[in-house]
């Protein structure tokens, strides 16, 4: 499956870790410890009255640039059940108004697999392309927590949630960057999901390294290979543990966005696609997302080989 086009958007406005920690009724000292242990300094937030229609048209414009084929399927993905659509047009009405969506005759919305949902969407797109029920699929994934209280962004001893969206256009062409090795795993022990008890959530958070290792093992990721991991940006502590356990070099886990953007839910791994495409030292990368409920998704991206050199699509 080819990645035909890619887009990402972050808001300009920032919130410091201190603001999130204190909004949840905690002392500033906790924020200082959180920064040091978990590696997040601030996150981005949209304006309070954000609506997805504020960014979707521009993302679709970007995705359409250079595209000769219009998508016939549209998948909207969000990790959390609530998404900011207040006081704005609906997705269905946008579908009617944006020219890039003119040929879309299938619209799906996916959120069941929490932060791994974008991988489930990729798998769905891959199935549609393979079976001929779609020729080109546009996927928009992301979140805004802008209309929720700031304290909702803070998950003690785990992460801080930031806002971001990504857009992907995929088709069946064999040139360009290829998405392969899509792996979906679920761990039934974490059936309680997003609204489990504190004990359930604690048990899930403690299993993040184990879940990550299981996925990367199934993807035949070789820690010695130097292949970069485009990670689930939950926090730096979990990835440090993974690196120690597996022998993976810290620099091979691309946590470059973590400090300034935090955990952007289902979009995390995909936010670094442009870095991957412009990095001349690597020809493939693994992407991973770990969702509450025990859902883990992974895939691999490979640049095309053209006469012995690598080219971005």
């Amino acid at each position, binding site marked *: 499956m080819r990645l035909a086009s890619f887009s990402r958007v972050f808001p300009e406005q920032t919130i410091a870790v201190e603001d999130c920690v204190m909004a949840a009724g905690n002392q500033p000292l906790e924020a200082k410890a959180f920064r040091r242990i978990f590696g997040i300094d601030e996150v981005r937030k949209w304006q309070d009255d954000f609506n997805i229609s504020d960014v979707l048209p521009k993302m679709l414009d970007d995705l359409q640039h250079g595209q000769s084929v219009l998508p016939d399927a549209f998948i909207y993905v969000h990790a959390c059940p609530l998404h*900011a659509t*207040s006081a704005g047009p609906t997705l269905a009405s946008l579908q009617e108004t944006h020219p890039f969506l003119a040929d879309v005759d299938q619209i799906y919305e996916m959120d069941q697999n929490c932060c791994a949902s974008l991988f489930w969407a990729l798998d769905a797109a891959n199935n549609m392309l393979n079976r001929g029920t779609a020729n080109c699929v546009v996927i928009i994934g992301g979140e805004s927590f802008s209309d929720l209280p700031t304290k909702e962004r803070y998950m003690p001893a785990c992460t801080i949630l930031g806002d971001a969206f990504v857009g992907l256009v995929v088709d069946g062409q064999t040139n360009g960057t290829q998405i392969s090795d899509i792996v979906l795993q*679920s761990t*039934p*022990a974490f*059936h*309680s999901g997003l*609204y*489990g008890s504190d004990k359930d959530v604690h048990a899930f958070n403690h299993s993040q390294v184990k879940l990550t290792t299981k996925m990367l093992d199934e993807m035949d990721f070789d820690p010695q290979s130097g292949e970069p991991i485009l990670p689930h940006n939950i926090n730096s502590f979990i990835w440090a543990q993974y690196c120690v356990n597996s022998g993976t070099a810290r620099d091979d886990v691309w946590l470059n966005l973590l400090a300034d953007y935090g955990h952007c839910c289902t979009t995390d791994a995909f936010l670094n696609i442009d870095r991957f495409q412009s990095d001349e030292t690597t020809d493939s990368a693994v992407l991973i997302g770990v969702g509450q*409920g025990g859902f883990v998704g992974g895939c691999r991206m490979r640049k095309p080989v053209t006469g012995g050199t690598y080219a971005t699509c």
Partner: protein
Amino acid sequence: MTLYLDPAQIFWDAFEELEPPQPEWEEQFDYWHDYVEKFFLSNGMKFEPNDSNVEQWLMAPDRAPFSEMVKALLPRMTEQTDLSETEAILFAHWLPDLHMGTSVTNFTMHELGLKNCFGFAISDRGLSAPFFAFDTLYKYLSAKDCSGLLLIADQKHLLYKSKVVDDLQPRNAAAILRLDPSNKAGLEYRGYKRVQYDADADIAASIDGLLDHFGLLGEQATVIGPDTLVSAVNIPGVKVKITEDTLVCAAPFAAFADAVEPSRDHLLLCQDGRHITALAFKGEDQ
């Protein structure tokens, strides 16, 4: 693939309190009031404070989450059947779970210790969800040659007020069915069909057409469905069994389990507006 359904492998029940409310949950009222408002806005709907049903949802004395109902039913099945080889679990419901975010299929896999099992939930299609799920599971099992479970549940307390629920007065009810292609005896599954009718006067003809479509014989058929449908049946020899609306999606399977006469053909019906959805089973030894 010919699938024989053993009626003894259908279990259902209605439940009262399976998860008592905790006093400290009252501290969560504000959080969930805010949540339900955002939930409405997220779905493009206007919200009025009176739409919230948070207090009842959290503190009612008869709360029964889907997973707790399934947990109560599973031992009744495992007492007589080994489910360790189950490779697919489909879950069907109309009304939302009391627990948001819980995966009922993953819960069941965890309860049964299943390591290689496919799970999927079907909803957002009204009362026909369990019929569609049954047929989907049948097709999946046909391709894989393995056994599966169909779980069905609905419960009475919603996060928001609903006229539909007020009118229906649903109970907490669940059903579980085992579909095992290796069964050599039982009622033969004949298929799924959904038809639309124009006027109430056409209901009888629609049901007659469904019996004919599935090759069920009128004089030895039992039609199971809501009163609005089966009261229109007027075919000599046909027996009818009225389903209990308050059992919601579990209703047709509850009536089937209770009224089954294995030698007779059975047509299970549900109604959504002017759509009739049907599952058909041919009687044994015909």
